[in-house]
């Protein structure tokens, strides 16, 4: 009997696994981390069963480790994400993401009259609430919250 063809995506030798991403935000995470421009082997799965999130997504990036500052950028869209750092097929470290104190260049300011929506200005926010994310625009000083959060 012929064995069913199967892609071996189950494990990576070295790299990072990002788990517990809300399924609907998978592509936002890819965008924020710039994974679409990576040369590394990347596999992802989405709409997987999760008790906590309902539907979750997972990303495995071979041969890549992220600095905390870089990975925390995804906290806006994947606040419960968990990272497994893999070396030689072993999980050597687990990390959770943390909402940083400032957010640069990821989110759009909700205020239509804000300068960042008129000219090419990199958006900057002070995080005024981490639990229910609320961002105060460094320029127009208006608050953008979770409901009207838009990723650039």
């Amino acid at each position, binding site marked *: 009997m012929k064995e069913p063809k199967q892609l071996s995506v189950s494990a990576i030798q070295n790299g990072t696994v990002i788990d517990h991403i809300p399924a609907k935000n998978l592509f936002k995470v890819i965008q924020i981390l710039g994974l679409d421009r990576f040369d590394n082997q990347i596999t992802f799965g989405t709409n997987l069963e999760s008790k906590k999130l309902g539907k979750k997504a997972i990303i495995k990036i071979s041969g890549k480790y992220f600095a905390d500052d870089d990975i925390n950028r995804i906290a806006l869209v994947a606040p419960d994400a968990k990272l497994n750092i893999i070396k030689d097929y072993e999980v050597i470290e687990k990390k959770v993401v943390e909402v940083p104190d400032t957010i640069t260049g990821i989110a759009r300011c909700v205020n239509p*009259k*804000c*300068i*960042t929506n008129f000219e090419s200005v990199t958006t900057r926010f002070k995080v005024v609430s981490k639990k229910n994310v609320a961002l105060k*625009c*460094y320029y*127009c000083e208006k608050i953008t919250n979770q409901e009207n959060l838009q990723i650039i």
Partner: protein
Amino acid sequence: MKKRSLVSIDDFSTEEILKVLDLAVEFEKQPVRKLLEGKIIATLFFEPSTRTRLSFESAINRLGGKIVGFSDSSSSSVSKGETLHDTIKMVSSYCDLIVMRHPIEGSARFASEVASVPVINAGDGANQHPTQTILDLYSIRKTQGKLDDLNIFMVGDLKYGRTVHSLMMAMSRWNTTFNFIAPEELKMPDEFKLYLDNLGLKYYEHSDFTDIISRADIIYMTRVQKERFSDPMEYEKVKNVYVLRNSMLENTKPNMRILHPLPRVNEIHTDVDSNPKAYYFEQALNGVYTRQAILCTLLGIKI
């Protein structure tokens, strides 16, 4: 010297605000001082604001500085499609300081990052207008002899009024008690009330003028604008409720003064003008002294 701008009132610490007010006292005593001789100040008014512009230009002239600029963006390169970024880059090489008024919120903060010289925000849309706040603080301190523990009444459009929000935030540094008098549609927004709650400051809300104003140290009037109402009937109902008349001032405290950022339309009846408690025209004059003080502070000029 490190470049210093004034974009938002929070850019200045309490100590720095008090220093500016003290400096303004000196300019009130002697307004003509040639401290800006040889300096060029750009006044860029991307939207017209006659009073603010004249006040700044008067302050600059009294200090012997020269002015370049425009009073309306139709007479600038903006009408040719130039970005704010490029306009500010170009202008900063022509002058020692930029005074800017712009209809877009956050434009002043952006300009202060782009410019190689200090920027004074003379109003960025509905966001900030810090020199107005400093002149209000000066007027309050001058008429009350202090800033601490005062009872301030704010009347009219408390929802959209940039000046009342900014003054409220600034005065919250001095243990102020606030009374807000506004129609339902123009009430003080929750975010500002929350701000006071967090500081543990007292505030009271009223829907019309009553004897309560006898407690006021300062009554800060603002204009209730027709265009703010979604229902014109609502405006008709309230338009005469928020008008201050001379007869209402009888039982007010002797030290009480009436402030208004101007222009006034009908919210202060002209019969109030001759009452010694009317202070709004002197308040406008104080704007020149405080702007002189702000210009010198940002340019690092000592008197």
